[in-house]
């Protein structure tokens, strides 16, 4: 991990450390590092995937997903699995940086701190998307649903984007406290519930094969939350990371 970090920071230092392109390069270097670390350990992904599977199995017995409850309970079950397993993955986003001293390296890099946030959130988004790539086909099998509706894909992408953005910010806050396993859900769930409700509603409408016009209310709520979180979280993260190092 250290080598990857050193390589990526020296690569950005070679160019002048300002401007959009070098910021993008820096963020991409963080993403590449996080993906490489995850590929080597597979800790976060395999852990959260097994957790999501267990959630699906338990709910399947509670609600009989293949039968009559498919349309009423199915979308909620899918999102509970995504949210709970995704939150497990999110709690890893900064844990390793703090444990192994990577945070100092990030802080020393000649770059805006909000760029660190973009890189970290993009890495978390990739991780959660990978989880969903496994989870969605399994859900389709259990609930006998078709996944190939473009509406469902848009809903899942928008819902995940907002959830991961604000989740990355709160993950940075939670990692510095003693009771971080408790802290992340405590902060993230209440704030994300409106977004999750909209995602569940949208998923239900998409699974029923309704038109885009029917999807519009859920889509606009999701898009509004995504836009708000994406504009608010990077500048707020700059205050959070100042407190993380101490």
């Amino acid at each position, binding site marked *: 991990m250290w080598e990857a970090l050193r390589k990526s920071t020296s690569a950005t230092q070679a160019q002048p450390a300002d401007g959009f392109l070098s910021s993008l390069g820096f963020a991409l270097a963080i993403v590449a590092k996080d993906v490489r670390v995850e590929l080597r350990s597979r800790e976060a992904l395999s852990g959260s995937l097994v957790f999501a599977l267990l959630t699906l199995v338990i709910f399947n017995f509670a609600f009989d997903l293949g039968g009559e409850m498919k349309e009423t309970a199915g979308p909620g079950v899918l999102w509970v699995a995504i949210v709970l397993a995704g939150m497990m993955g999110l709690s890893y986003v900064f844990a390793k940086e703090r444990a192994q001293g990577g945070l100092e390296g990030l802080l020393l890099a000649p770059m805006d701190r909000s760029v660190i946030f973009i890189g970290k959130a993009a890495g978390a988004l990739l991780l959660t998307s990978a989880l969903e790539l496994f989870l969605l086909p399994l859900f389709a099998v259990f609930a006998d649903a078709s996944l190939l509706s473009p509406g469902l894909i848009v809903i899942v992408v928008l819902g995940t984007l907002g959830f991961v953005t604000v989740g990355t*910010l709160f993950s940075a*806050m939670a990692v510095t*406290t003693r009771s971080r396993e408790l802290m992340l859900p*405590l*902060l993230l769930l*209440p*704030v994300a519930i*409106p977004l999750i409700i909209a995602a569940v509603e949208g998923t239900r409408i998409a699974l029923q094969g309704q038109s885009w016009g029917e999807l519009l209310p859920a889509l606009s709520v999701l898009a509004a939350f995504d836009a708000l979180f994406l504009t608010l979280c990077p500048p*707020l993260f700059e205050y959070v990371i100042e*407190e993380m190092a101490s």
Partner: protein
Amino acid sequence: MNIRLNALAGSATAGLPGLRFGLPVLAAALLLAALTEALVIAPTEAAMGDIQRIFYFHVAAAWAAFLAFFIVFAASVAYLRTKSARWDVVAVSAAETGVVFVSIALVSGSIWARSTWGTWWTWDPRLTTTFLLWLIYVSYLVMRSMVEEGQRRATFAAVFGIIAFLDVPIAFMSIRWWRTMHPTVLTGNGFSVEPAMLPALFLSLAAFSAVLLHLTLLRSMLERSRQEVTELRRRISWMEERRG
């Protein structure tokens, strides 16, 4: 030491002397007037009867909670800009009083719903988003108790206080965005309330706002004194350690 402690406690409560004495008097007077208007003078609603009188305090409590959460939001922004502990004190005080008022709104609404809708609770958008507000600001307070006192706690609380406020406009707008069974008071054409009931409503709104500001101010002074005492204790133990 006693003299210094008194001086410090004095400086903690020195600000805004006019508000300190004027506000409780104003709040008490307004509350009395609002109670008289709402319970005695306002006409009895034809369909619902006397239970409708809860409405004045229910709306006022919800309004006071929105106001409190706006204070949390504004104080959080001010804290991040100035890093002055004073704003953190204002934010936590407003969050606490806001939770109290949103609880009053939820409970009084529930009592009204039992007699009018025939159920204590329903997952209506307005009710759900208001309950969410309660959850969010209780989380805010629990989070504060989980982080050690100091600049880190104040910063994290401010960051959460800003993100948390996003749900307030949604709770307020929920009755216009989604179909709901919750009555709409403020419509595009003004108030949808009998003119004879408006004085009681406005007096309740003013009274609850004054009570909220008074409680928040009191709580802020308490919090500042508490922080001064913590700081003094820290200094005393440091001095005793040096003396050996």
